[in-house]
C-alpha cells in the first residue's frame, strides 16, 4: 500500500483557518452594521442642520428640515425618482409634522437667515419666519430689530422658569395634598364603616380641599403670567401663527449657526434627552425616568438572581448526590434558558402578581383594599415582580456559570482545605467561592445583559408607558418595590409601534436603542472591572 504524498506546501486542513475567520468576519460585520445603523440614526436626531425654504412647482412653498431622502417606491431602477421627507412642524396648522415631496417638484431651495426653529411643549416643533415678539411686560420687539434674538432667548428662559414653578406646584405640593386626601378618604371610609367619630377627619378633609384650591389658583396665576408673552410668526404659506412663549422649550436660528453652535446645540439636546422628562406621548423630551427605571430594575434583579443562583449551584455541584436525578434537574435548569421570555411574563403575572402580590395585599394591606375601592398595592405589576420575573428568567445562566466556575477550581485547593480539617461548608465559603467569583460574575454579567434588554415579560408585570414617579426617590422607604416604572426596552417598543406620530417617533426609536445599548455596556463594564480585580486577586497557582 502506497502512502499518500506527504510533502505539501500547505499543511492539510489549513483552509479551515480561513473558513473560521470568515465566520468571525461575517459575525463582526453584522454586529458592527447594526451598531453603526443605531449610532448614525440615533445621533442624527440631535443634530440641527440648516433649514431651507423649499419652492415647489405649483407655486407653494414650505419650510422644513430634511428628514430623509429615498427612492420613490415603484420607480424604475434604471431611472430612479427620489422623494424627500421634510419635517415642517406646526402640527396644529398642518395636522401632521412631516411631508413627502417628489424631488422633481422642487424648483428652488433657499436658506434665509431669519428662519426660526422652535421646540414646543405641545404640537411638536415648528419652523417659522418670526414677525414680532410681545414680551411679558408688554413691550413689542420686531423681528428686524437686532435685539430680537436676545429678547427671544430671554423669553424662552422666562418660560422655562414658569414651567418649573408650575411643575413644583403640580407635582410637588399638589401631589402631596393629593396623597394626603387619598389617605384621609380611606380614613373616612374606615371611620364610617366602624361607626367611629368622623368630624375630625371631615375637618381635615375640608382643610385639604381648601389647600388644594389655593394651590390650584396659585398655579393658574403663574400660568397666566406666562401667557402674556407671545411670538407672532408666519409659516411658509404666509399664514400667521401665534406661539405662546411659555410653550417654547428651545429656540434656534438654523441658518445662522456656525459649526461650533451646532455642536453646542447637539450636546444640549443630547443632555436633555438623557436627563429630561418625556413629553408629547414620549416622542419628545428626555428619558430620565426610563433610564432610571431600567437601571434600578436591572441592579435589583442582579441582587436577587446572584444569591439564588449561587446557592442552587453550590447544592447541585457540591452537596447533591451525583446521579440520574441530578442530571434531570440539570437538564431542566438548562432548558429553562430556552423558554420564551413571554412565558416567564405570564408566570410572573399569574404567580407573583396575583398569587404572591394578592396574598401580600390580603395579609398586610387588607385595610387599604377594603376602604380604597379595592386598589391593590402589591397585587398589581411593579418593580419587585419585574425584578423577580427576570431573576427567574436569568437564573439558569447564573447557575450554569457558577457550576462551571466551581468545577474549574483546582482539585488541589479543595483537597488542601479539607486536609487541614476544614468542613465542606468552610471550604466552599473560604476557598471555592472566592476562587470562582470571577466565573460567577461572568454569569451575572450575561444575566444582566439579558435582563436589561428584555421587554416582553415586563409588559405583563409592571412596566408602563409613563410613570408619574420614580421607583427610587427621597421619600421613605426610598426603594418603592410596588411602583410601576418606565423601561428603555419597552420605550423602544412603545415608540416604534404604539406611537400616534410614527414619523416623529422613528428617530427616537434609534436614539432610545442607542441609549439602552450604552446603558447595558456601562453595566457590563462595571461588572467586568470588578471581575478583573477579583481575577487578579484569586488567580490560581501554577508553575
Amino acid at each position, binding site marked *: 500500500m502506497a502512502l499518500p504524498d506527504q510533502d505539501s506546501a500547505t499543511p492539510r486542513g489549513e483552509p479551515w483557518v480561513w473558513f473560521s475567520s470568515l465566520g468571525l468576519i461575517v459575525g463582526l460585520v453584522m454586529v458592527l452594521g447594526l451598531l453603526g445603523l443605531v449610532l448614525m440614526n440615533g445621533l442624527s436626531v440631535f443634530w440641527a442642520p440648516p433649514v431651507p425654504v423649499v419652492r415647489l412647482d405649483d407655486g407653494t412653498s414650505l419650510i422644513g428640515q430634511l428628514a430623509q431622502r429615498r427612492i420613490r417606491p415603484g420607480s424604475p431602477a434604471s431611472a430612479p425618482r427620489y422623494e424627500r421627507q421634510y419635517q415642517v412642524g406646526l402640527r396644529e396648522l398642518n395636522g401632521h409634522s412631516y411631508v413627502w415631496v417628489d424631488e422633481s417638484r422642487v424648483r428652488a431651495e433657499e436658506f434665509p437667515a431669519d428662519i426660526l426653529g422652535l421646540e414646543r411643549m405641545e404640537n411638536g416643533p415648528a419652523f417659522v419666519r418670526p414677525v414680532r415678539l410681545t414680551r411679558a411686560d408688554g413691550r413689542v420687539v420686531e423681528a428686524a430689530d437686532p435685539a430680537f434674538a436676545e429678547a427671544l432667548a430671554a423669553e424662552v428662559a422666562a418660560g422655562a422658569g414658569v414651567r418649573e414653578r408650575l411643575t413644583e406646584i403640580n407635582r410637588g405640593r399638589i401631589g402631596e395634598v393629593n396623597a394626603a386626601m387619598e389617605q384621609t378618604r380611606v380614613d373616612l371610609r374606615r371611620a364610617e364603616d366602624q361607626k367611629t367619630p368622623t368630624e375630625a377627619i371631615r375637618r381635615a378633609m375640608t382643610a385639604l380641599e381648601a389647600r388644594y384650591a389655593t394651590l390650584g389658583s396659585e398655579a393658574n396665576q403663574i400660568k397666566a403670567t406666562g401667557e402674556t408673552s407671545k411670538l407672532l410668526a408666519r409659516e411658509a404659506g404666509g399664514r400667521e401663527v401665534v406661539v405662546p412663549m411659555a410653550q417654547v422649550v428651545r429656540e434656534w436660528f438654523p441658518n445662522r449657526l456656525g459649526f461650533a453652535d451646532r455642536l453646542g446645540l447637539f450636546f444640549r439636546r443630547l443632555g436633555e434627552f438623557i436627563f429630561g422628562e418625556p413629553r408629547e406621548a414620549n416622542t419628545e423630551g428626555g428619558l430620565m425616568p426610563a433610564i432610571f427605571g431600567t437601571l434600578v430594575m436591572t441592579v435589583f434583579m442582579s441582587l436577587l438572581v446572584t444569591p439564588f443562583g449561587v446557592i442552587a449551584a453550590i447544592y447541585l455541584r457540591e452537596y447533591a448526590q451525583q446521579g440520574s436525578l441530578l442530571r434531570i434537574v440539570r437538564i431542566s435548569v438548562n432548558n429553562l434558558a430556552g423558554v420564551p421570555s413571554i412565558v416567564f411574563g405570564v408566570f410572573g403575572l399569574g404567580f407573583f402578581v396575583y398569587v404572591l402580590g394578592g396574598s401580600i395585599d390580603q395579609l398586610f394591606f387588607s385595610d387599604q383594599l377594603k376602604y380604597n375601592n379595592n386598589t391593590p398595592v402589591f397585587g398589581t405589576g411593579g418593580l419587585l415582580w419585574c425584578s423577580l420575573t427576570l431573576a427567574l428568567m436569568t437564573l439558569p445562566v447564573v447557575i450554569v456559570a457558577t457550576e462551571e466556575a466551581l468545577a474549574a477550581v483546582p482539585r488541589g485547593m479543595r483537597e*488542601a482545605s479539607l*486536609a*487541614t*480539617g476544614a*468542613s465542606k461548608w*468552610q471550604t466552599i465559603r473560604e476557598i471555592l467561592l472566592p476562587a470562582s467569583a470571577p466565573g460567577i460574575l461572568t454569569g451575572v454579567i450575561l444575566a444582566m445583559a439579558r435582563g436589561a434588554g428584555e421587554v416582553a415579560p415586563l409588559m405583563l408585570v409592571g412596566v408602563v408607558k409613563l410613570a408619574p414617579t420614580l421607583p427610587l426617590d427621597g421619600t421613605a422607604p426610598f426603594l418603592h418595590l410596588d411602583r410601576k416604572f418606565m423601561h428603555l426596552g419597552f420605550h423602544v417598543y412603545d415608540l416604534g409601534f404604539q406611537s400616534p406620530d410614527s414619523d416623529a417617533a422613528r428617530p427616537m426609536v434609534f436614539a432610545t436603542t442607542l441609549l439602552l445599548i450604552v446603558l447595558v455596556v456601562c453595566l457590563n463594564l462595571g461588572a467586568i472591572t470588578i471581575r478583573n480585580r477579583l481575577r487578579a486577586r484569586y488567580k490560581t497557582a501554577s*508553575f
Partner: protein
Amino acid sequence: MITMNPPTPSRIQVRPGNPNEGRQDYISIRDFGFWYGDKKALDAISVAIPERQVVAFIGPSGCGKSTLLRNLNRMNDLIDGIRHEGEITINGRSIYDPGLEVISLRRRVGMVFQKSNPFPKSIFENVVYALRVVGVKDRALLEEACETSLRKAALWDEVKDRLEDSALGLSGGQMQRLCIARAIANRPEILLMDEPCSALDPIATGKIEELIHELKAQFTIVIVTHSMQQAARVSDRTAFFYLGKLIEYDKTEKVFMNPSQAQTEAYISGRFG
C-alpha cells in the same frame, strides 16, 4: 523526579534510628483492602507505623502507595464508589469509628500534596487557615502560630517581611514549604506527604528533606516518594508496594542493604519499575 541513575545499595547512606520513637504501632493498618468501584487498588495490607518516625512508601506508579496514604486521613472519601475492608487505627482508635468526625481526624493528620497548592490568600492567611477554621480569632495567637509554623518549615526568614503578600508570588520550593507550614500549624500528630518533592529542584528538595528530619522530633511522618535516594535519606522504615500488595516492610537500612524479597531488590537496584 530527580532520580537520574539507579542507585546501587552500597552508595546509599542510611540515617541512624530515631532515639525519640514511641509507640511501635502508632498507626496500625491491618488486612486493609481498597476498591475504586470494581478495581481493587489495595490488597490485604498490614503495616504498623511507629510514633515519631519517618516511614517511606515506595513502589512503581499505580502500586497503591498514594491510595494507602490518602486513606490515612480519609481523603479518598471525596471519590465516589470507593469501598474498603480491614482496619486502620491511629493510637488505638479506628479512623472509621462512626463516633469520630472525619474533620477531627484530618485535624490530627496533616497532609502535604505532590503539587503545592497554596490558597489564593496572603502568606499569613495560608498558614493560619487550619486555626481559622476551628474558630481561633485572637490575633496574637494566630501570629505566634504563624511564626512557629513558618520557622519549623524553614521559611520564616524568607517571608517574615511580606506575610501579607499573596502566597502565589512565592517560588515553587517556597510554596511547598508554605504548604508544610500550613499542614503543621494546628499541631497535628501525623504528617502525610504525597511526593512532596517531585516538582522541586534539588536545592529545594534538600531543604524539604532537612525539614523532614527535623519535624520527626514531633510528628509521625509518612512519605510517598518515587526517589529511592530520598526514601533512603529521610526514612527510618520503608515499605515497598507492588501492584496493590505490600511486598516488603522493614527498617530502611535493611530494605536497601539487604532486602529479603527478590522483587524489592530488583526495584531498588533499578532493574524494573
